[in-house]
């Protein structure tokens, strides 16, 4: 009788054996679970052992501090010359902006970072926040150009460094955004004429490298305009970026539009809403929410691509770093220069991409609920 009822009560939970949990199990399961993984682990550790001490000694141990004179750096190349960065910091960050006025671009950077950080919070995804952005942009223009509130006028050929990088990408994004919505709607339109125009524009822009657009803006734009009308280099580059961004963002938004179930369109039609009302009230709010992660990704690549303006002679962050390297006194410290600006770019892009990944997961969770 009792054999069938193998255990009358519940068996107690036993602690897993040491091969399942605990640090030894972790090492065994994650580093040495097969012979080739063991081999790999050992070779990676050996490689790291070869690389890391040298890297550390160059970066920190043998490095010359932020106030070391250049002669000291020249005397011993076994360590990084961080005084290059401190010496050129303001030039790399702000370019040729008048030295005494450089608090203005600094403030500009801080305003932009604040606005971007606030935009990451969903509580601010409200129409009124657009007004905050508009206000921020107005403030930034006043700061950068000056000429008002007792600020001296600074012409935009003197702008450079990080503010230029951020302005080119953020302003490009802001202006291209409404364009891209129209293009995306056009591409999804039932009207063949509209669709053809949108498709032609999007595919044309996406089919050519950004450099060719910058070229077009810098050498052809002057030819396109009526005689006597001239626009400066920065605006030309900005135009190229807007044209470029609009096409890529349109594709991101199109993805969002495609993800909206047909039932939503039908429901809106059933309510008797006209096309624009339907789009504005029903479709676009949902589609844009879905499109935000790819839009952030577009913005990241766009932020990196602003470095291309160096080719048409503007000094963004990469441009100023390269210019700083041409100073005969500080020639050759390219590792320090590139590491420094690489870190700035990296911090911006890394956090934006982490944000976009987080957002995507968050949106998926919300949709499944």
């Amino acid at each position, binding site marked *: *009788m009792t*054999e*069938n*009822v*193998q*255990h*009358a009560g*519940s*068996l107690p*939970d*036993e*602690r*897993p*054996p040491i*091969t*399942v*949990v605990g640090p030894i199990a972790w090492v065994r399961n994650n580093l040495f679970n097969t012979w080739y993984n063991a081999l790999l682990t050992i070779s990676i550790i050996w490689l790291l052992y070869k690389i890391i001490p040298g890297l550390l000694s160059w970066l920190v141990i043998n490095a010359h501090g932020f106030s070391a004179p250049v002669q000291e750096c020249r005397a011993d190349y076994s360590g990084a010359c961080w005084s290059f960065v401190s010496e050129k910091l303001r030039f790399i960050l702000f370019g040729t902006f008048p030295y005494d006025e450089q608090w203005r671009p600094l403030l500009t950077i801080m305003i932009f970072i604040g606005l971007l950080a606030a935009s990451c919070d969903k509580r601010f995804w409200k129409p009124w926040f657009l007004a905050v952005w508009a206000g921020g942009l107005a403030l930034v223009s006043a700061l950068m150009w000056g000429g008002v509130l007792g600020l001296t006028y600074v012409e935009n050929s003197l702008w450079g460094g990080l503010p230029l990088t951020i302005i080119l990408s953020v302003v490009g994004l802001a202006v291209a955004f409404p364009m891209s919505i129209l293009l995306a709607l056009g591409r999804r339109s039932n009207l063949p004429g509209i669709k053809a125009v949108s498709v032609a524009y999007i595919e044309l822009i996406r089919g050519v490298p950004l450099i060719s657009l910058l070229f077009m803006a810098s050498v052809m734009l002057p030819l396109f305009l009526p005689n006597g009308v001239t626009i400066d280099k920065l605006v030309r580059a900005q135009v190229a970026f807007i044209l470029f961004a609009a096409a890529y963002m349109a594709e991101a938004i199109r993805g969002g539009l495609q993800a909206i179930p047909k039932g939503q369109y039908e429901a809106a039609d059933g309510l008797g809403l006209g096309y624009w009302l339907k789009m504005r009230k029903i479709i676009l709010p949902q589609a844009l929410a879905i499109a935000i992660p790819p839009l952030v990704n577009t913005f990241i690549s766009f932020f990196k691509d602003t470095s291309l303006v160096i080719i048409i002679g503007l000094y963004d962050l990469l441009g100023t770093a390269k210019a700083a390297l041409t100073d005969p006194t500080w020639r050759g410290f390219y590792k320090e220069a590139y590491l420094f600006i690489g870190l700035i770019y990296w911090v911006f892009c890394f956090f934006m991409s982490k944000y976009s990944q987080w957002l995507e997961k968050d949106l998926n969770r919300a949709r499944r609920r």
Partner: protein
Amino acid sequence: MATTTSAAAQRQTGTDAIIQCVGVHKWYGEFHVLKDINLSVRKGERIVVCGPSGSGKSTLIRCINRLEEHQRGQIIVDGIELTNNLKNIELVRREVGMVFQHFNLFPHLTVLENCTLAPIWVRRQPKAEAEATAMKYLERVQIASQANKFPGQLSGGQQQRVAIARSLCMSPKIMLFDEPTSALDPEMVKEVLDVMIGLAETGMTMLCVTHEMGFAKSVADRVIFMDRGEIVEQNTPDEFFTNPRSERTRLFLSQILSH
């Protein structure tokens, strides 16, 4: 009653066992998912494993073809002990067919190709022979007319029948069913159960994790009830349903039979 139980006991210790689990333990991290499992299955025996979700029943049958590793104890299938020896694992898997809750058909292959893939690459059968065998089994699960369609074109019930045929094409000695009907719409459950009943009649050794108590009553030689990682009770279906011994079994049965 005493005779049935002693016979069952004898069966368990008998040497004709095709599957033997001795003192099997398994942990997922800190979670003790299988506790001291002792189970022996005769050739040709039909066993239904049931129990509340999270009781370890799926894990148990997944250990039998080593889709999961156990950490203590012994599992011997068809005379081969399951260890880290890859060759042995592959040998065992050839003889043990498995049907999954979510079918797991290969979406890039047609129904026929799904069925011939393993016979061709594992059993090294000529294509024509493998196809003839596949058509025989597809005939048996009454889906031969769909042989050249892709899994995505079939209903859930049809897909599960194909999955059964796919396993049978390897002429396994044992068939494992991991909740084969629980992902199906109600109207499709019967067509799959009918195929499984037909299979039971051929004398196949079957281990089914299922909540289909009707199936258990009509087909099973033995019903195993698991809870919190242990085998709480095992008995013939008659005894199991009419005279459950453990309080936990009674509770489970009252929950599952109430609707």
